[in-house]
């Protein structure tokens, strides 16, 4: 059934367009467009120096309801996590993406940390951000063997670990970084762009946070204002 329907649909499209299959030359030009993807118009505010982008990211992320905490050095991650749990009266345990092993999160005795895939009972989940977009205050999270995508959705409290150097201007910059990491035209199974905590306005247009995904999105931003280039990958 499927192949027939495919042939039928493609034939109908061509008939409607008043042509046969595209000539080879036209196909080649479309293939070139795909092989060398060019950004379209990128808003001016996404094209600033890195310091300005970091400030813009923080402003935009807070505007959509995320909280941002800056630390100079990843050694402080454990203390940061312990503070967060205490501040929100949460139980002293959390689950973290295995990619964060050895990141400094373990540097606390106040929190029981598990590295792995989140379960329904986990209240706090921690994942590394691949990049973040200053233009809109958006995190870009990728999935993989040591980063479960469910970490971004299942636990009520979502903590994202972001390196200052990974803040970029626009979504297009994230795509460029992905091509560098995975090769052209290839993606991780799941790429999540996240702008603030989960929300809904489906009841009388009242905005309520924590619809299905996390109620809280806390971004821990590591860096002391100096750009470093070690986080490529």
């Amino acid at each position, binding site marked *: 059934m499927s192949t027939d329907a495919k042939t039928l649909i*493609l034939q109908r499209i061509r008939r409607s367009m008043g042509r046969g299959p595209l000539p080879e030359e036209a196909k080649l030009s479309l293939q070139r467009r795909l092989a060398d993807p060019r950004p379209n118009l990128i808003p001016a505010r996404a094209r600033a120096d890195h310091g300005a982008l970091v400030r813009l990211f923080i402003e935009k992320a807070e505007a959509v309801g995320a909280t941002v905490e800056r630390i100079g050095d990843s050694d402080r991650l454990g203390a940061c996590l312990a503070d967060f749990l205490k501040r929100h009266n949460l139980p002293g345990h959390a689950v973290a993406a295995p990619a964060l092993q050895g990141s400094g999160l373990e540097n606390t005795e106040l929190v029981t940390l598990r590295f792995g895939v989140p379960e329904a009972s986990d209240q706090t989940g921690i994942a590394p951000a691949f990049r973040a977009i200053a233009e809109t205050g958006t995190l870009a999270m990728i999935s993989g063997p040591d980063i479960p995508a*469910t970490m971004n959705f299942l636990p009520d409290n979502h903590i994202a670990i972001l390196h200052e150097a990974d803040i970029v201007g626009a979504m297009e910059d994230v795509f460029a970084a992905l091509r560098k990491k995975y090769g052209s035209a290839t993606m991780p199974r*799941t790429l999540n762009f996240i702008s603030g905590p989960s929300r809904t306005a489906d*009841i009388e247009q009242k905005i309520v946070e924590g619809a299905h995904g996390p109620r809280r999105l806390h971004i821990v931003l590591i860096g002391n204002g100096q750009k470093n280039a070690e986080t490529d990958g």
Partner: protein
Amino acid sequence: MQPTSHDFTANAHKALQDENLRKALKRVEAGFTTARARAAAALPEFEALRDQARDIKNHVLENLDFYLERFAARVEEQGGRVHWCATPAEARETILALCRSVDARTVTKGKSMIAEEIALNPFLAENGVEPIETDLGEYIIQLADEPPSHIIGPAVHKTQDQVADLFLEHHRRYGKNKRLEEAEDLVAEAREVLRDKYLAADVGITGANFLVAETGSTVIVTNEGNGDLTQLLPKMHIVVASLEKVVPTLEDTATILRVLARSATGQEMSVYTTFSTGPRRQGDADGPPRFHVVLLDNGRSELVGSDKGELLRCIRCGACMNHCPVYQAVGGHAYGWVYPGPIGAALDPYFLGLEETRHLPNASTFCGRCEEVCPMRIPLPRILRHWRERAFSHHIAPPAERWGVKLWAALAARPALYRAFTRVALWALRLFSGRKGALRRLPFLGGWTDGRDLPAPAGPGFIDQWRARQKRGGTSGEHDG
């Protein structure tokens, strides 16, 4: 769903008397339109982005066969499957067969207009697979057993009190017996109930806002995160999408995303924008082991090259209905099918035929706001006018209407007669309006005067005023306002 578009007049009458609906629609107008205006004003490049977004979609539609084949090839190279379906029936059967292949008993669903278009839920239920809507709005109307009344806010017609009653009635079986008064509590209860459903579901079905030809990715845009739990937790992720959702590259997707959320809810970005590419990879920590895309045609392959092909640029943001005075007055259900508002009035006649939908192109004041706010610059009023003309020339409009139009045409083509007629009519309207300056009742125009008075014309008609002005001021009349 069984269309009721032929009953538009009756549907609209009923809607106008519905107090709850009146309150709900006021919120649509106030909420969505203000938010969109603010978001558009805050981005200097917004209008230029709309142009680019339109051009991208035009380019896709010109080369639709190429991009679809490329998208399908990329999906399959990465371990997914693409199912091409010419008709809604084929799409339903395909989805059911996929569900059965993993012995699915329950299916969670993200919001999908295509699933509504093919009436998927009743079909699955009849065949022993329980569909569970997870978008809060869709969940509410599933409990109420109603169709969506808005493209992005399916339950905008419901008040909080109505939602509270629905939850009380349907959540008893989960041991929840308290009627909740606050929106926060209602959301929390739905969240709790649906959590278990995600975890138990065998298949997750989502729609797609975009299909990326470059990478074979499908993209969904949500605020709740329901679409993500829906696709990540079960054994199989099925994406149901129509042909025109394909875009060339990731960069093209980014451009359209910049106008989508701003036009829809006034957000710069929706909370979650998710790119899903194939099934879970070898060694991946989680994600669906099976990935299928059901590509629906349902006549689009014939719409694409036609004079109404521009409708296929639509990205389903809902801006046209949010800004439509008719939608704001009657709500989405009056339109009688899946797509309401101006886009529905333009699209539904294509899907259902003009016999069924002949009222819809008339459900417009031609104020042009829909075209003004459409991020893809679809000429909706032009297309509605086209349907009206077609209804007239194909004798679909009823005799009274056709005679009325003919009479008007005869009058309008004879200037002297027209002027004489309007003078008499204006005089008569003023005469009968009395001291109040308004008419309570008019023969043949009960539809207008039942709900309100008709204000009497204040003075002579335009042509007489124009003449008088020309006499007074010579040729200066053109620019003084």
